[in-house]
């Protein structure tokens, strides 16, 4: 509960119209795309960095938890206020402050929608590559906080590779700047990189400067259907290792994922398909045509049942809509799912998938696997109906999978963040000493622990 005088103090400083304590707003800001729910005590919708700064310093004074939120589209509970307190909705801070085409940089407020930024810079033939599945509605602030990866990671890397500088409000209300608006900078410790992926547990970004690239002239897309997973994985090896192609995207979907979207997308997927690869290449007109035709041959050499090359932008969109629809479409199968984003060394993908399907049978829980397979990344989605018994076996299954993933050199999360959904598993990957160092670092920035408590660490 937030005391009346604290409420008044907040209203005085950020404006009554931006502070919400009615139950309806609190309900609407209690969840993210994990479907997990915790009611906040207040929702504050700042418009300026001063609003952010005063809100945080008041919260710090009275020990009120702050949960920063972009669009609430995350998949690890990052924006869920598990300890109550204030949800800081940054959606109104959505200005693109400066696109500097000559410097190849853009500076934005955190609430800018990823796709809006991409579209805006594309007008100047510039390119911001990181593109999570939710790019159309997720915000840059959320992307940076979780260090999201996305569809173009194979060639272009993830969010952290593009964040040059940050303006951050710290829990004491002070505002710091990390990094420079230059394409390189190494002065001092890399605080920028420290904050990227910090999941709102250290401070709140109020300005973000990102690196841009020249926009590739053309993108070519090819989809290929296989009768089993082995054929699909052999194809990825053929492309990357044997033929030395570097695709922009190299995506994989398994049978459960395919069946979830079958009939709901415009793409007609033949029966009997157990694996699908979706591949993008980019470059100039000539190189794209050339690469696509070579990749098509590689797919066929690896026993593809059928390949489809997109001829127009609309056809590209149809093929990609299939891929993007998979995650939410799994709710057509059951009402709950646990969305995992493991990553393993590329050579271990086959082994991991085999184990996952075995375990899925043992625990009688359906698992869909899809993801940025070129990078050894897999979204394992456990699909189940609500109920205590299911919850228990889901939990056991996740623990087992993550244990095995870590034991072969993989990671428990590669782009969603730990949040609270995976905080209990962080000990699988990090040693107590390493966790202790991280906690000490957090304490330095946030001694009272008001920033997004309950996340990352148990």
């Amino acid at each position, binding site marked *: 509960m937030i005391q009346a005088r604290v409420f008044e103090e907040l209203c005085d400083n950020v404006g009554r119209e931006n502070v919400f304590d*009615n*139950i*309806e*707003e609190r*309900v*609407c*800001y*209690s*969840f*993210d*795309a*994990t*479907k997990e*729910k915790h009611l906040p005590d207040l929702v504050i*919708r700042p418009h300026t960095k001063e609003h952010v700064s005063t809100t945080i310093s008041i919260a710090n004074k009275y020990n009120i938890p702050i949960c920063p939120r972009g*669009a*609430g*589209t995350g998949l690890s509970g990052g924006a869920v206020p598990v300890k109550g307190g204030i949800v800081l*909705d940054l*959606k*109104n801070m*959505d200005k693109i402050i400066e696109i500097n085409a000559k410097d190849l940089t853009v500076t934005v407020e955190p*609430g800018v929608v990823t*796709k809006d930024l991409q579209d805006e810079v594309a007008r100047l033939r510039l390119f911001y590559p990181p593109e999570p599945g*939710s790019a*159309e*509605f*997720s915000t840059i602030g959320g992307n940076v906080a979780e260090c999201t990866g996305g569809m173009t990671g194979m060639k272009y890397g993830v969010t952290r590779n593009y964040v040059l500088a940050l303006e951050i409000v710290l829990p004491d209300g002070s505002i710091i700047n990390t990094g420079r608006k230059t394409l390189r900078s190494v002065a001092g410790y890399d605080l920028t990189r420290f904050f990227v992926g910090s999941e709102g547990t250290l401070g709140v970004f109020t300005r973000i400067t990102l690196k841009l690239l020249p926009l590739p002239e053309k993108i070519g897309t090819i989809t290929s259907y296989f009768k089993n997973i082995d054929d699909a994985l052999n194809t990825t090896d053929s492309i990357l290792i044997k033929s030395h192609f570097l695709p922009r995207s190299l995506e994989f979907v398994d049978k459960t994922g395919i069946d979830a979207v079958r009939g*709901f997308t415009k793409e007609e997927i033949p029966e009997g398909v157990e694996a699908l690869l979706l591949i993008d290449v980019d470059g100039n007109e000539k190189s794209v045509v050339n690469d696509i035709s070579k990749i098509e041959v590689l797919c066929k050499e690896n026993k593809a049942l059928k390949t489809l090359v997109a001829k127009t932008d609309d056809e590209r969109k149809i093929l990609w809509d299939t891929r*993007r*629809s998979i*995650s*939410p*479409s*799994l*709710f*057509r199968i059951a*009402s709950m799912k646990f969305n995992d984003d493991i990553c393993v060394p590329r050579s271990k993908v086959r082994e991991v998938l085999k184990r996952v399907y075995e375990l899925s049978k043992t625990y009688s829980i359906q698992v869909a696997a899809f993801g940025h397979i070129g990078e050894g990344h897999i979204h394992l989605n456990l699909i189940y109906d609500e109920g205590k018994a299911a919850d228990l076996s889901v939990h056991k299954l996740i623990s087992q999978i993550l244990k095995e993933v870590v034991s072969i050199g993989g990671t428990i999360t590669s782009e969603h963040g730990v949040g609270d959904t995976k905080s209990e598993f962080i000990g699988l990957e990090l040693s107590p000493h390493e966790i202790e160092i991280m906690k000490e670092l957090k304490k330095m920035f946030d001694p009272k622990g008001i920033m997004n408590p309950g996340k990352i660490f148990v």
Partner: protein
Amino acid sequence: MGEDWKTEVSKCSKCGKCHTVCPVFLETGDEAMVSRGRISLAEALRDQQIVYTNKLRDYVYSCKKCMRCRKDCPSGVDYEIIISALLRGVAENMGIPLLPKIIFRYILPRRILFDTMLKVSSKIQRFIPMKKRGQMRHLPLLFMGKRWIPTLAKKTALQKFRNTKKLKNPRMRVGLFTGCLINYIYVDIAEAVVDVLNKMNIEVVVPQGQLCCGTPSSSMGDVKSSRKLAEVNRKVFESQGLDAIVSACATCTKTIKMDYLRTLGPSWKPISDKIYDISEFIYKYCGEEYETKPIEEKVTYHDPCHLLWVRGISDEPRNVLKKSSNFVEMDMAGSCCGGGGIFTIIHYDLTLKMLERKVASIERSGADTVATNCPGCVMQIADGFAGKNSKIKTTHSIQILQRALANGNINREK
């Protein structure tokens, strides 16, 4: 009443994709004013975490019911089931305000009363000075709010077309469902429908007993009144032995074609299959066989939500306009104009913001005239231009075709 909404809400994956299409969220950025948020409110109601309050009612009423989110939902949530349940819940738990209640329960079902009520108000209107091209500040009756809306017609469409022309050898006989706005205000749209169809050798009747489609009452959760209206309309149209039923109102078409299937059950299906939007009908049955002399004006088209997002109709009206005018496309033709029902009263500021965007799109297109297929959109957009003394005219696409046909010859025999 159905409890299906309780399971429907569980289908929502909370992914947030509706953020990208919701015209209200685009303006507010408020999670309580987008489908995902309203679904979570429905969930909280189901789980007895919240109760009906004025605040909740405002969030529920903040939905335009354009159904654009349903079309794009990757989890396949039928949002209409949920929003209808919320509206019904608001009505059942908080009651319907007295004035609308009287109108829905006692006036809408009785044509004579409805006529009289509006006639009286139109008499009183005369004491208010005419303003801005026939748009005047209306009395706070059905169309409450601070809007510039057109004056009421002296003779309603139903009265004017009581006895429509009988054709010698008509190729089809169709009934016109006028809807309230066309019946009382935009009689010229009804006239255009009759005129155009007659020229295509199609006989038109305007069945006299027809009533309001029921959208105003169902959008305030008054299911009982809507059902009563639907039942009367069923009787009126079933008995006519028509080849087809057309409407020039996107919302009426949606309601009588689709919603009635729920209200009246599967027995409505044979009639529902014969209901068409006017452009859809012309495209299907008259195709290319009519000749026009296109008017010289530059005309653009605004997609009414209930035609585009609910029924997927976009090519048909454009086809008609391309044959009848110097057609130009506008950007964001499918974005909501902000008009329609209770939303414009409770969330007037949002209505204006949406209207501003629409007006700007139309202006950017360079068109002299904007055509659309819904009298509600016509009223809203005309309001936007009246407010700024623009020369751009707002009309129904059938009226453009009417003018183009008046110019040219008709090839009837094909």
